[in-house]
């Protein structure tokens, strides 16, 4: 390796030392980077930022509860082939025509190095990560139907996000570089807001941040507002020209911060009773 690539974030994605170290490790050691953290702390955006910083193309694989590992590699479109054989369209003998590469397959097959984001890996079945172990390790797989081997020409940068809904298997975890995205502290948060909304009235930002952190620290919230909610909220305040905010019943656009009915009730409760604990 000639020189190490160092990730320093991008103009719109701010990082800290710990995150940079994790990304650098993943890049240098060519291991997948597993990112965990509260929803809304920018896990998915990290992949975009890495792709942008390195000037690479980003492939995204959104994992759902029904996703199977095989789909990421390739699918064999048997139904299409069946149709074609019945109606005489196309050349049915050429199985290759019915092999569709999934995101992982395309990342391997790509001529250039790409960034592959496997988003919300924990949404899928418990066994899902295990099924990908070998492919992520060796960066190759075999298409059984055509007996063709697809080998990564350039090892893709793999970034995996997880909301910690499910435990991931140990064998999978051991192969990854792990990073836990903390909730940003106040000064980093101020810089993040500044990046997204430059030239905003400083007094408003200070007030909004104050309100935001006080709501975040309230008891009994099921979903605490996070970075993305704050950025959205400030965007609303800016767009509609709100000049000042304070923590009270008529807080504007509360719905962008608290999204669960119970949380709104808890909020109203605690406003009425001050910060006193009521059960």
């Amino acid at each position, binding site marked *: *390796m000639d020189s*190490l690539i160092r990730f320093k974030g991008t103009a719109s994605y701010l990082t800290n*030392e*710990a995150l*940079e*170290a*994790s990304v*650098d*490790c*993943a890049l*240098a*050691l060519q*291991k997948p980077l*597993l990112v*965990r953290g509260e929803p809304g702390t920018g896990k998915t955006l990290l992949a975009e930022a890495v792709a942008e910083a390195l000037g690479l193309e980003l492939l995204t694989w959104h994992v759902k509860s029904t996703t199977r590992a095989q789909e990421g590699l390739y699918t064999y479109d*048997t*139904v299409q*082939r*069946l149709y074609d*054989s*019945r109606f005489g369209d196309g050349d*049915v003998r050429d199985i290759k025509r019915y092999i569709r590469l999934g995101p992982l397959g395309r990342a391997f097959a790509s001529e250039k190095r790409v960034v592959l984001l496997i988003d919300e890996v924990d949404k899928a079945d418990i066994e899902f990560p295990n099924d990908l172990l070998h492919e992520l390790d060796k960066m190759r797989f075999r298409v059984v139907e055509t007996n063709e081997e697809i080998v990564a020409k350039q090892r893709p940068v793999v970034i995996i996000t997880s909301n*910690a*809904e*499910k*435990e991931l298997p*140990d064998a999978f*975890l*051991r*192969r*990854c*570089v*792990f*990073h*836990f995205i*903390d909730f940003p502290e106040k000064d980093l948060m101020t810089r993040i807001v500044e990046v997204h909304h430059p030239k905003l009235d400083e007094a408003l930002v200070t007030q909004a941040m104050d309100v935001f952190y006080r709501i975040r620290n309230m008891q009994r919230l099921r979903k605490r507002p996070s970075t993305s909610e704050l950025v959205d909220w400030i965007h609303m305040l800016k767009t509609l020209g709100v000049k000042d905010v304070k923590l009270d019943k008529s807080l504007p656009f509360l719905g962008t911060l608290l999204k669960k009915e119970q949380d709104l009730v808890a909020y109203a409760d605690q406003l009425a009773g001050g910060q006193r604990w009521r059960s």
Partner: protein
Amino acid sequence: MFVPFLYRLRQHGVPVGTQEALALAQALALGLHDSSLDGFYYTARALMIHDEGHLDAFDQAFLAEFRGIEGKHIQLKQELLDWLKDAKLRPEDLSAEERALVESLDLEELKKLFEERMNEQKERHDRGNKWIGTAGTSPFGRQGEANEGIRTGGAGGNRSAVQVADARQYRPYRSDLALDMRQMEMALRRLRMWHREGAEEELDLDGTIDKTASNAGELEVVTRPPIRPNTRVILMMDVGGSMDPYVDLMSRVFSATKKATHWKELRTYYFHNCVYGKVYKTERFDDPVWIQDLLHECNSTYKLIMVGDALMAPYELMRQGGALSLNDNNALPGIGWLLMMQQHWKSSAWLNPEPPTYWDGNTIQAVRQVFEMFPLTLEGLTQSMQHLSRGKSPRK
């Protein structure tokens, strides 16, 4: 070398192995840590830790291993050593005071003293005469009056690794502490088994399409047995008396198990202190169920989860007729009943809200001889679920 650090991590319960060691060695060889302790902290953390639950343990291990190294490594080398060398070369430049110091403290002594102070000191300290800090008269610190000090403190701006580790901001993520409902449900979900059992009566549509299409149109029907959840659980909870402080925790365990939809059957029973002949369907002990009946009704594949502190008077557990209530069957001592249940059901676990440090030298110790015991924390719960899904383990 960082190998002792790996063993320290293992002591703190962070599962690291050869794979992590090799990865770290490779990263260090590539110079990812920028030859600094801060860089090492972040690099090691990225490679050693795979779960935010271990971050706090990592911080602790890091502190235990490296507290003091930072000062010794950077500051002693750059400033003190230079200064001392300088001083030796040009003793005539020194004031009488300084010369006295050089004579009174040799380098080794100063280093040792410094490390000791580093270890003792927990927080930032200003204007003192002993601790490492700023603006004081202690020989260790910054901007002090004592011009013979060791300067400490990292580069401007960012916090140093030891400070970051010292802040222990990941303490809330530790998995061996408190339990909230959702975490508990997630842990219980581990005890899940699906079985395809019975006759092949379900049409496997995907399989059929697959086979048919692979046959280029010749229809081939594929069938399979239907999928069923296959876990039956008996939960027995100790209530009253010494369990009162844990009422809140117990009610959370109870509602989490009730919410678990992935079990085929869940039976809950209550007992007080120990089981003697029968358990009760309600917390008020008014709907008794004889253990003998239960053993007949529930075959050995049921999973038994006992929850209780297992603390009682020794005679309640060990002596015939030790039961507190006269109605109880007293022919067997309590431990006999426990043993009978443990032997009947293939897998069983005992969850104890008492911290493991109190598990020796009382009745808990005796109960542990019978049941595999786990602390009632997230980690303990998870382990117990793993233990239960593994099946019978030989009794100790």
